[in-house]
């Protein structure tokens, strides 16, 4: 007959836990309301929010906003986080109280960072509910994947898989951008009379064409799309390897191509109109030398990128 007291004890402790769970939930609701939808966490409230028996879900941003921590991505990401958590406050109360947004700064909760083994920030972790109708068996927290970038839209879209109803996030209307565009149009319209002669000159367009194609063929779009840094971490400006390049290379290569192109234009269009044989000779030698020299430099650069390249010029 030992069983009965044991049972009683177990049920009692369960009751107590249920009660404390309700209490915790109330506390969290008030915390969220106080923070405008976002709970500013510390080690204690973090434990509350991620209590092992919870019928709510939570998404927590681990960050380090203190200037001393020098976390630039944290600052970049924080506005998106704020915006998404703000959007969540627009949902009806019964759903709103089933999911919480929290922010844990490194300086407020080092213990939690250590416990989770986090070595970098920002990190977003979603804690699904462990009890109640919404728990679906998967109780281990999952990380948000930053490969979508720091923008709020993909964040809201992704977090919506874990919230009871989708987060009603809409991108705020970008007044600054549209004002700039409108002002730009206006400025062009006003200035049209004055810049018309420039726009009608074919050489303006020739310059635009040449610069565009030189910049494009120097791999500008590569650096845009891949987000290559301007130069390497070790201060080198040229990236080894055929399929990579730094931002600075675009400039150097475009200048090299431009110089070579200019030399060819001089050879083909200017030299025939020189008055004396002496001047013509001087120019021909000048531009030919420049072509050979710059071309050699180009080949040297190409050899840096492609080590197996078998040819070389002067250098």
């Amino acid at each position, binding site marked *: 007959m030992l069983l009965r007291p044991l*049972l009683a004890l177990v049920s009692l402790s*369960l009751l107590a836990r249920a009660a404390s769970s309700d209490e915790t939930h109330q506390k969290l609701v008030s915390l969220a309301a106080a923070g405008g939808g976002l709970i500013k966490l510390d080690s204690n409230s973090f434990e509350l929010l991620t209590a092992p028996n919870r019928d709510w879900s939570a998404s927590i941003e681990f960050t380090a906003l203190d200037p001393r921590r020098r976390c630039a991505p944290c600052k970049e990401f924080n506005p998106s986080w704020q915006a998404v958590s703000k959007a969540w406050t627009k949902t009806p109360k019964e759903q709103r109280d089933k999911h919480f947004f929290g922010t844990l700064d490194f300086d407020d909760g080092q213990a939690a960072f250590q416990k989770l083994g986090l*070595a970098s920030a920002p990190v977003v972790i979603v804690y699904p509910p462990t009890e109640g109708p919404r728990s679906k068996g998967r109780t281990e927290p*999952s*990380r948000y*994947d930053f*490969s*979508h*970038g720091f923008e709020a839209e*993909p964040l809201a879209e*992704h977090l919506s898989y*874990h919230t009871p109803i989708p987060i009603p996030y809409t991108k705020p209307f970008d007044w600054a951008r549209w004002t700039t565009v409108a002002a730009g149009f206006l400025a062009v319209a006003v200035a049209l009379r004055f810049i018309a002669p420039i726009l009608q000159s*074919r050489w303006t*367009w*020739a310059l635009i*064409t*040449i610069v*565009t*194609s*030189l910049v*494009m*063929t*120097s*791999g*500008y*779009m*590569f650096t845009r*799309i*891949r987000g290559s840094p301007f130069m390497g971490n070790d201060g080198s400006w040229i990236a080894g390897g*055929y*399929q*990579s*390049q730094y931002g600075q*290379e*675009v400039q150097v*290569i475009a200048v*090299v*191509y431009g110089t070579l*192109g*200019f030399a*060819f*234009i001089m*050879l*083909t269009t200017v*030299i*025939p109109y020189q008055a004396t*044989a002496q001047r*013509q*000779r001087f120019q*021909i*030698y000048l531009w*030919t030398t420049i*072509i050979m020299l710059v071309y050699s430099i180009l080949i040297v650069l*190409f050899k840096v*990128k*492609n080590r*197996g*390249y078998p*040819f070389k*010029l002067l250098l």
Partner: protein
Amino acid sequence: MSAAIPLPSDLSPVTVANTASLLRIIALALISGAAIASRLFAVINFESIIHEFDPWFNYRATRVLTSKGFYEFWNWFDRTAWYPLGRVVGGTVYPGLMATSGVIYNFLHALNLPVDIRNICVMLAPRLQCPDGLGDLHVRVFFNHTSCLHNFGFRFTKEMKDESAGLLAAAFIGIVPGYISRSVAGSYDNEAIAIFLLMFTFFCWIKALKLGSALFGTLAAVFYFYMVAAWGGYVFITNMIPLHGLVLILMGRFSSRLYVAYSSWYAIGTLASMQVPFVGFQPVSTSEHMAALGVFGLLQIVAFTQLVRSHVSSKQFQDLLFWALISVGLLGFLAVVGLTYIGVIAPWTGRFYSLWDTGYAKIHIPIIASVSEHQPTAWPSFFGDLQFLIFLFPAGVVHCFQQLRDEHVFVIIYAVMASYFAGVMVRLMLALTPVAPVRNGARVRGIFSLDTRLTIVGTAFFMLAFFVHHCTWATAGAYSSPSVVLAAANPDGSLHIIDDFREAYHWLRQNTPETAVVMSWWDYGYQIAGMADRPTLVDNNTWNNTHIATVGKAMSSSEEVAYPILRKHDVDYVLVIFGGYLGFSGDDINKFLWMVRIAQGVWPEEIQEPNYFTPQGEYRVDERASTTMQNSLMYKMSYYRFAELFGGKPATDKVSIAFFILLLANMRAVSLDEAYTTENWIVRIYQVKKEDVLGRDLKSANAFSQGRKRKRSRPMSRRPPVV
């Protein structure tokens, strides 16, 4: 201006003309010879074999076409692709390439020349270079002043100069690596024929515009139709020609020539292009084609204004007309926007967006971003493909702007667009390649003294010779690998052929039932269908993202999750590419993150990319790899029994230089049996086990059949659940 060297005066004009044309023919023949020869490296180094991935499908389709006839091909429903969905091939293929091969095949057989269809397919691309050189010559003759020849010292006549410029351009395009990359022997791909068609359509368009000829406009439309039937890149023409027309109108260069040329091209070309089933009603219902329609409408309006203006003199009426037409134009534009909004006209497709907003593809359609051809181009690729043609660009542009007739405007627009697109996607380098030679070239004339003349000739000759060496090097080294057969060098320098792919496909063909479904990543789908002749789940057609994501999910999940997926799709064999033994870097472990990403796009809750990295954010495959990684089916299939190769020493993956110590010894998949592994371990094939007949789970069934008693897990608590 006087010629640098005076013409011999004792020759009759007829002699000069005849000599010139003889020289021209010889030069063209030599250029064609060089162009074809430089595309044969692959055949000489390896063998007459179809290359890469997509060509295998084209080859298979061509075989169906030649053996069963055109109507069978048109109605072909391929049950073995995209198992169990199947693929309507006739309606989802650009048939131009196969039809071309079929015509050549039938023609040769009518002459009693029994040439194997495989050789026709292998050699099709090089063979096309011959007319291509010719076609290009015509384009060049046409752009006669666009760029001129390196005319160093001798000039026969004005005519001759222009055609020599054409010859030079033909020579450039014949050997420039950027084009060779898609037209080597064995590269039986749509692009091989499409670039020739692209050039020829543009040539007809320019000619039509110059002459105001409806005949050439119609010819342009006919070649446009051929192009539409051959390659999805026809959209480039569909937008280039309207853009050219629009710019001409904006420059105030509207003429009846433009009206005739454009109207005849657009009307006939659009109707013709709608005959291709894969295109269907797209020309009137998608945004990609709306520019052409808009410019067509604009031209009618402008032509109407011009007509009325020439008959009515009242100033007020003309003003009224002007504003009325502008409002009609605006209304038309708004109508198109409105129709797009309510969904009658399909908005731009994702592929189109990804050309402009470069971040788009990465977020929304990872399957597009994952293709290596869709990566942006770094500058070494540009230089490697075009060499000194790049920096002759500015000189060519200046020449164009000096003349600036209608056709020069076209070249300029083409150059700007092509260099942008080539920068965004490596694959579109191809579009840039034809314009580069057309635009460049320089004429040095009026040089007075001998030494400078020699300097110029010497420099030019040197640069051309360097170009030829560069092209040969790039072609032989970079663009002539079939990628089905790999080559390595033995220690003594001789060629060692690695033929694992065909070994594996042949094994499948000989040892499995014909209905055995093979699952692999989509890259190998066409090859399995072509060489092993077995049904595949996904292939390079990539039309069904969910199906591909399913395969990605099976590869990247643990066995417990993957096994039901495999069984539900009737998968009998799973094929993985493993390069760790040989150091072959294009293996599945390298592509693995893309599988994860694509699966994550469909099941974001179950598959998450960060789980495949170490906590430090590294992508590792050794014992420090994340647990999710180690449990994934792909990882197990790649490294199963890998340690045995090293006899107790730490196993080394040659691609990532990772050392494995304990991990691999006890790793095995319970739901798969290793069926076959090729000589160099590149291809590994696993057989999927059927469910146990006694209804046990596979783990205990395995343990039982191996004679081991499975350790029982701790007994469940018998206590009744407490509420």
